[in-house]
């Protein structure tokens, strides 16, 4: 019941903040596509930073990462480095994407690739891959939020109802407010997540160990196997290093995260946010690691490691802190669900619908299509979540097989004028097929994750095919964008 109070407050605040932009708009003022899709490309550094960060951190961090550290040890902290690398990617690519996006009215990666390589087919393929990859991603977020409701309220709000409430709230404010609503709710949810988890984990560490120094001393003596690789589950170096780079390079290739690059108000803001993302990677993820290690020391052999943090409350923190932790968990989930659902609506409307219709529809028609797909996405994700797929983190990691394929194309599009559309299309297909082969048929030699193999195949294919084919067209595509970008 206590947790339900904290969760309810977050839900009400989220709904209020989410609906505020929609209702503050003058009644006669129609919502434009630019506003609904990208918040009128006016995101300042604070909003841009929080929406990028809150979207990145999800229920996979709150539940999956806690379970990973608890059971397998510190190997999961590749997340510190991968998030830092993703900040570096943002730092270098976002200012260019923002500038090009403003000039050419790009909304998604597909727009950029289709323009740069002068290929409608490539635009469709990129849109399709992005859309397909986002379905499992949003599904696990809905599973996460349902589990959080179930666990924190001790079954008072069952999984199906919790997931339904969360999805319905997100669908409601996305429907009316679009990107502006999503971004402002992310600011709220990002602050709630970071402060709540630091507060609760800090209380546990001080109550159970008396401070950080004695906590680390206890960790060194009681769970030393969790503090280095390979850890109790024999985690391979190939996994650790390849996962670092796959998530680092592929993270901002997710359609919903890429859209934040082009939604920036200026290139300068985008660059500043890139460096902040790198700086914030440790403070926002460290409490999860500390909390999981504390649970491993204090309550070893938990049957369900996902619940490690909550299991500490009661014995090592006052019962009321469960409300704060529950609020943090819900915040982590909602901030990702809203961005994914909104982005799915935008991607389908912009990359698939607009590319397939012959005559450009009216603004209101485009928004209606996007809204319809936001709702459809929410229904599909909710229905899929009811099957409760397990291993949240593993599912999320596998979806990188698709999005990591955009990174070589992005770099080539910006910096290599010899890249051709044939090379880009072949690279995307070969990379994707290779990643799927390693994922489901060959396995992962030396622990190197399947998306990394796909990435290597993609790069090689892009270089070889581009060199043996002629540039698509001199002028608008190849030369101009490469020159504009540098």
């Amino acid at each position: 019941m206590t947790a339900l109070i904290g969760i309810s407050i977050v839900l009400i605040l989220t709904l209020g903040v989410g609906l505020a932009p929609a209702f503050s708009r003058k009644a006669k003022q129609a919502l434009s596509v630019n506003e609904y899709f990208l918040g009128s490309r006016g995101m300042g550094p604070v909003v841009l930073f929080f929406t990028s960060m809150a979207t990145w951190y999800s229920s996979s961090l709150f539940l999956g990462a806690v379970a990973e550290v608890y059971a397998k040890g510190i190997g999961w902290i590749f997340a510190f480095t991968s998030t830092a690398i993703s900040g570096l990617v943002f730092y270098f690519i976002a200012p260019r994407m923002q500038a090009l996006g403003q000039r050419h009215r790009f909304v998604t990666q597909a727009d950029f690739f289709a323009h740069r390589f002068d290929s409608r087919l490539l635009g469709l393929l990129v849109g399709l891959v992005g859309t397909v990859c986002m379905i499992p991603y949003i599904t696990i977020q809905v599973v996460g939020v349902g589990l959080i409701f179930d666990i924190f309220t001790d079954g008072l709000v069952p999984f199906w109802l919790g997931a339904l409430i969360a999805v319905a709230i997100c669908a409601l404010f996305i429907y009316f407010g679009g990107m502006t609503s999503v971004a402002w709710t992310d600011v709220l949810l990002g602050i709630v997540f970071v402060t709540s988890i630091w507060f609760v984990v800090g209380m546990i560490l001080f109550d159970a160990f008396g401070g950080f120094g004695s906590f680390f001393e206890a960790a060194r003596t009681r769970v030393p196997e969790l503090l280095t690789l390979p850890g109790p589950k024999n985690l391979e170096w190939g996994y650790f290093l390849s996962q670092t780079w796959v998530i680092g390079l592929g993270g901002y290739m997710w359609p919903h995260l890429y859209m934040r690059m082009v939604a920036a108000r200026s290139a300068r803001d985008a660059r500043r946010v890139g460096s902040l993302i790198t700086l914030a990677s440790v403070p926002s993820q460290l409490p999860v690691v500390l909390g999981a290690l504390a649970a491993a020391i204090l309550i070893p052999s938990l049957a369900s490691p996902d619940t490690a943090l909550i299991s500490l409350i009661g014995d090592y923190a006052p019962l009321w802190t469960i409300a704060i932790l529950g609020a943090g968990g819900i915040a982590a989930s909602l901030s990702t669900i809203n961005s994914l659902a909104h982005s799915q609506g935008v991607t389908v409307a912009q990359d698939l619908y607009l590319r397939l219709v012959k005559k450009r529809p009216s603004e209101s028609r485009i928004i209606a299509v996007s809204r319809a797909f936001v709702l459809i996405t929410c229904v599909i994700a909710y229905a899929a979540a009811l099957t409760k797929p397990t291993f949240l983190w593993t599912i999320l990691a596998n979806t990188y097989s698709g999005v990591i394929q955009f990174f070589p194309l992005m770099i080539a599009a910006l910096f290599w004028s010899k890249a051709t559309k044939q090379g880009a299309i072949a690279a995307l297909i070969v990379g994707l097929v290779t990643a799927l082969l390693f994922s489901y048929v060959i396995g992962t030699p030396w622990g190197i994750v399947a998306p990394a193999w796909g990435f290597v195949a993609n790069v090689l294919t892009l270089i070889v095919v581009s060199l043996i084919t002629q540039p698509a067209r001199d002028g608008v595509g190849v030369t101009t964008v490469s020159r504009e970008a540098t």
Partner: protein
Amino acid sequence: MSRSLTQRVLWLLMAVVIAMTATPIVILANRITPSPLGVPFFLLWCGAIPLLLWILMVLHSRVSSLEGESKS
């Protein structure tokens, strides 16, 4: 401010990120001791990478904007 300085910072940034995350140096850092401030060494190593990258990014940003100013 010469253009080569911006490029040098850029190369330094790339070298640091690759050296600290994708070379055998990472394997050497995989240890509990020494534990500065009581923090296990590998945890400290992984936590230091983002901080170091951030410092280099700020440096790169400053150098490139100074270069832009001197050009204009």
